[in-house]
């Protein structure tokens, strides 16, 4: 089983990317969690560029999503919402809407911020966007507030955060298994 992990933060020492790295290190046997690092290369969405030939970074992203059984997003919160770069990448993946690779795909959202709220508004908005795109969105939240204290030197040291992260990844994998059974039965 393959999970694509997408961080909405480009910063080298990002707390959100650290959350996904922690998830990658803790995945159960038989599950590969791959961290996608191409966000910075995705150009702004322009329908004029979305024809037969699309930018290489977009092709790579669409292929990575299509080849994954599930996608785990970690988002910071910029001005109470999803970072523009992350939203832009999803906008590219979402076209055309009726056949895009996020359709029916199990996805989950987690988030970290240095404030006390843990990017809850960005997470809610990202879930809304993913639902509009047609993904199978887990109704779960992991709000890691005061991330500078709980994620030090790129390592998630908070046992409660790790337990919740494990739980969300397990639920995501369950959603993949359920979807496989549904499709097989159809």
């Amino acid at each position: 089983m393959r999970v694509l992990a997408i961080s909405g933060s480009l910063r080298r020492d990002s707390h959100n990317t650290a959350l996904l790295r922690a998830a990658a290190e803790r995945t159960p046997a038989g599950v590969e969690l791959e961290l996608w690092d191409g966000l910075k290369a995705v150009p702004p969405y322009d329908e004029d560029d979305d024809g037969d030939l699309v930018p290489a970074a977009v092709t790579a992203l669409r292929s990575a999503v299509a080849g994954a059984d599930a996608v785990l997003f970690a988002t910071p919160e910029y001005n109470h919402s999803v970072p523009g770069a992350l939203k832009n990448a999803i906008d590219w993946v979402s076209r055309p809407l009726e056949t895009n690779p996020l359709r029916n795909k199990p996805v989950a959202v987690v988030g970290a911020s240095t404030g006390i709220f843990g990017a809850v508004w960005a997470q809610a908005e990202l879930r809304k966007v993913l639902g509009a795109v047609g993904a199978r969105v887990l109704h779960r939240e992991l709000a890691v507030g005061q991330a500078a204290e709980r994620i030090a030197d790129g390592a998630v040291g908070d046992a409660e955060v790790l337990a919740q992260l494990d739980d969300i990844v397990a639920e995501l994998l369950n959603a993949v298994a359920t979807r496989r059974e549904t499709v097989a039965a159809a």
Partner: protein
Amino acid sequence: MSTSTIAAPVGTWQLDKVHSSVAFQVPYLAGAFNGSFRDFEGTLDLSEDGAALTGAAKVASVDVKDDNLAAHLQSPDFFDAESYPELTFASDRIALDGESVQVSGEIAIKGVTKQLAATGAAHGPVANLQGNDSLRLQLATTIDRTDFGVSWNAELPGGGQALSNEVTILAELYFVKEA
């Protein structure tokens, strides 16, 4: 099967899809979204003991006038067509009083089955051009879509929700008796 007073010949009646429609209407702001299902089937069984109406509609055949909305309706936010490809109905009671008809039964949407009652009119039977009896049922009912987990909504900037939870289902059913 319970009692019915439809005064029509006993037997199995098949839905004539060309002259039938299964549609829905959802209030939205001051207007309404209208949609229908292109692919559906139905059977009306009339016997000495009573009548039974069964039907199913394919979620993938939802027809609305906006492609983005059509794609959104197929997704887990709404009908989740991949997991629940059909909507089904099976009556447990059909009662006729003059031209007024009342149908009750179970409807299943997105994996949730609920009891509903629909009212409307019955016309016929009238022999069609091939000499087979035909009859028409016009039925309407209202359901709360959130009872079935079809719960998507959006907050309006000025307050309130974009989409009503109440959905009217309108079935125009034209049956032809098997020879």
